[in-house]
């Protein structure tokens, strides 16, 4: 347990190992560790960014869905309104048409009535003349009395 040159040997070894560590061990290890740290930090940041992006996209899609729903609702209500309108229009049209048909029928009936009346009148005139002939028991000169007959038939 005496002090001897081992002291010097140990000092030399110490300096050698420090030099070796400084040159070949420490920088390599520390660079690698720092690089890994940076990568992990980047990864975490990217993950966070992704999560944020996802949340944003979700929000956006929700808004879009709501917009779509609103649009669909307005379209449906518009269509309903339009349908109602069409039905209303059709009803009006049908009413008008039916009225027109009725009127034309009435006018036709009126016309028929007039024609029938005319016929009847003519026939009554003929009948009246025939009746008068019978009553007078003689033939009436048609040509002579034509004027009277026309007057009667007109009065009828």
């Amino acid at each position, binding site marked *: 347990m005496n002090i001897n040159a081992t*002291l010097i040997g*140990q000092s030399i070894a*110490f300096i050698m190992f420090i030099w070796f560590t400084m040159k070949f*061990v*420490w920088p390599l290890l520390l660079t690698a560790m720092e690089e890994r740290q940076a*990568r992990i930090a980047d990864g975490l940041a990217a993950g966070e960014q992704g999560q944020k992006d996802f949340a944003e996209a979700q929000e956006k899609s929700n808004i879009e869905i709501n917009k779509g729903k609103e649009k669909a609702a307005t379209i449906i209500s518009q269509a309903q309104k339009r349908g109602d309108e069409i039905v209303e229009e059709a009803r009006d049209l049908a009413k008008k048409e039916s009225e027109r048909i009725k009127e034309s029928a009435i006018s036709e009936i009126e016309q028929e009535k007039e024609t029938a009346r005319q016929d009847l009148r003519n026939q009554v005139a003929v009948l009246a003349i025939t009746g008068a002939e019978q009553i007078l028991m003689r033939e009436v000169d048609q040509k002579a009395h034509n004027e009277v007959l026309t007057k009667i038939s007109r009065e009828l």
Partner: protein
Amino acid sequence: MTVETITSKSYITHHLQNLVYGKLPAGFERDGQILEEAVWTLAHSHEEVVEMGFWSLNVDSLGWSFFLGAIFSFFFYRVAKTVSIEAPSGFSNLVEMIVEFVDNSVKDIFHSENKLIAPMALTVFVWVFLMNTMDLVPVDWLPVLAQKLAGDPHFYFKVVPTTDPNITFGLSLTVFAMILFYSIKMKGAGGFLSELTLHPFSSKNMIVQILFIPANFLLEFVGLIAKPVSLALRLFGNLYAGEMIFILIALLPFWVQWTLHLPWAIFHILIVLLQAFIFMILVIVYMDMAHQKDH
């Protein structure tokens, strides 16, 4: 150890003697013979070690210390070369954990710019830890193995480098040299001298200040010298005491040894790690003090 009977005293002293390689002078009486000329050899006894003087080497501590340092360098270098950024695994994780721990300690304590400090702290921490850990190897395994391999029952072999003050002082004096170097480099020779002489007592009065200088210098100088001494002796003392207790436990009958050996070994794991940590932290603190421009 097999031929002669072993007494407790011889067992202990044998365990505390390093394997020393040095020069024996001519005329020295060795194993009953007188040497005719000086020889470089391994010491066989404590007397021979004393005779060899300063220019001798503790082959065992230095060998183990160098071997453990090489193991540290090799494994850390291999990890540094093959480290995977994508998927670190196994041993690489352990290495990175240690590196990160040392890096954080340096960042917390050391406030100047110096690329040397962190690698130095890492080297000190792992190396001292490995050297301390040799204390957990049962005290007779490696020495007996060495004796068998050498074929010499007297073969000295200490396996825990940090129980050798040469090793701890070798570390702490290197640190001390760096303290001096960086103190002068960062503050200039004048700045360093004024730090040693103008604190802690200072006065605006010139004459009083001059009177204070010797007292200041005495205090600061003792403080400066205390750094390497305490650094080395703390590590050495803790590990030497721990080793000593393991040796004493080994003197007990083999069937009760474990009752003391086990708790002490478990407790010693803590000391092994703690001393390595303290050594590293103090190195960083001292280097930080050397770099600070204002006291």
